[in-house]
């Protein structure tokens, strides 16, 4: 390969890349907040005693798990506005699409965590007079969050990567900016390499942190 790498053209595009990065981080943070909160709520619904609650929740989870994320995003951008005749800000639409997808995956992660809470703890909550919602908030959630944390964080990184898909519907995120720069300068190799490195640098510390937490949990189990 005698391709001459030349990164100099990117010097002037630093600002554009930063803008894209900001949008990407916004998308990732917002969809993760949504996924962490709604994921737990959805998990409770999916584990409900009542079929009428459990069934739609499970359907929601399976829908998002069993269709491509790209399709979900496209569907959100084109079909939702057609159905309800509103199109909110593109970033918000992106957050909704990514966030709902993450909600479904996080609900499954939480479920494993909730199931790992010993049954005796629930008995103890009754004996202590805690109401069902207090039991959920003060005893089940903290324990489930702890158990589910590695998977939740892995899902979170996944959502950061998936956020690149919104470039396809013209949200100016990091991927979108990269794509524009690459076509303008006819330098896809350099541009996409730099963009990839930025995604990598964002995700790697979190992935490493997941390893540390998993190791600590393994040790705690052995103790």
């Amino acid at each position, binding site marked *: 390969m005698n391709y001459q790498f030349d990164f100099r053209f990117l010097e002037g595009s630093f600002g554009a890349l930063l803008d894209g990065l900001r949008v990407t981080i916004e998308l990732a943070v917002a969809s993760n907040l949504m996924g962490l909160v709604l994921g737990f709520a959805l998990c409770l619904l999916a584990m409900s005693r009542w079929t009428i609650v459990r069934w739609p929740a499970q359907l929601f989870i399976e829908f998002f798990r069993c269709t491509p994320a790209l399709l979900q995003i496209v569907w959100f951008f084109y079909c939702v506005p057609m159905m309800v005749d509103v199109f909110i800000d593109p970033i918000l639409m992106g957050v909704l699409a990514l966030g709902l997808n993450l909600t479904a995956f996080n609900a499954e992660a939480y479920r494993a965590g909730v199931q790992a809470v010993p049954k*005796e703890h629930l008995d103890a909550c009754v004996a*202590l007079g*805690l109401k069902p919602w207090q039991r959920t908030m003060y005893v089940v959630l903290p324990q489930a969050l702890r158990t589910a944390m590695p998977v939740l964080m892995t899902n979170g990184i996944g959502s950061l990567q998936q956020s690149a898909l919104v470039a396809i519907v013209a949200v100016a995120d990091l991927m979108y900016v990269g794509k524009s720069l690459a076509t303008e300068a006819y330098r896809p190799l350099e541009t996409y390499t730099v963009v990839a490195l930025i995604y990598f640098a964002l995700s790697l510390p979190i992935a490493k942190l997941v390893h540390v937490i998993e190791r600590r949990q393994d040790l705690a189990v052995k103790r």
Partner: protein
Amino acid sequence: MLSSQTMIAQHDVPPAVVDFSPSTSGEFVQFSDVYKSYGENLVVMDHMNLDMREDDRLVIIGPSGSGKSSLLRVMMGLEGIQGGQIGFQGKPYIFGADAGRAKRIDAKLQKQIGMVFQHYTLFPHLSVLGNLILAPVKVGGLSKAEATERARLYLARLGLESKLHAYPSQLSGGQKQRVAIARALMLEPKLMLFDEVTSALDPEMVIEVQNVMLRLAEQKMAMIIVTHDMHFARDIATRVVFCASGKIVEQGAPADMFKCPKQARTREFLEKVLHLD
């Protein structure tokens, strides 16, 4: 006291509606014709009658599957009963499903009962202090400062004041159970239930937990205790109740029960367990 041995054995007859007239409501705890089964075959409380006075410490003994733990779980309100009634402090407390009431348990009375379990039930994400003050603050209406003050008091009494900020994973099994007892006492219950609280412990830790319970006994705490430890039963009980197949076979003062049990079933059981000890 012996009248409670009279059992109603006819399964087909619907249990009589018990009336809590003043003449019968003097008892602190009163099981009247309590019926509970899991499915058709496993009857854990077979029309059980049981009385307990406020200064009583009942120890329930019996082979496994005899309904000992069910009795405690029902009293705590963890599980319902199909038939009969339970009175607590002279008031109706729990109703059987056959009573056809929407509310089958009096939540106010339920709050006056504390329970300690066989397995460790300290919440691992909270410190000892956090475990102790959770319910008093969220349910009991105490301020955090008041609850913390009370927690210090109880921990000091149990010789655990240095563990206030420790997490459950840093405690030994015996310490965990002592903290669990303190956590139940924080709500100042009128009755304490102990469900085989020492059977998951190493022998040397059993004593420290039993000592805490003996001290509670000195302070006249009403207790119902399920245990396999017959020596401890003899030390702490005012009355020993022998259950088998969901029925109370025999009950009496510990000295009488262990020395000269009247029923063959009781004798057989005691010979077996005392021999093993």
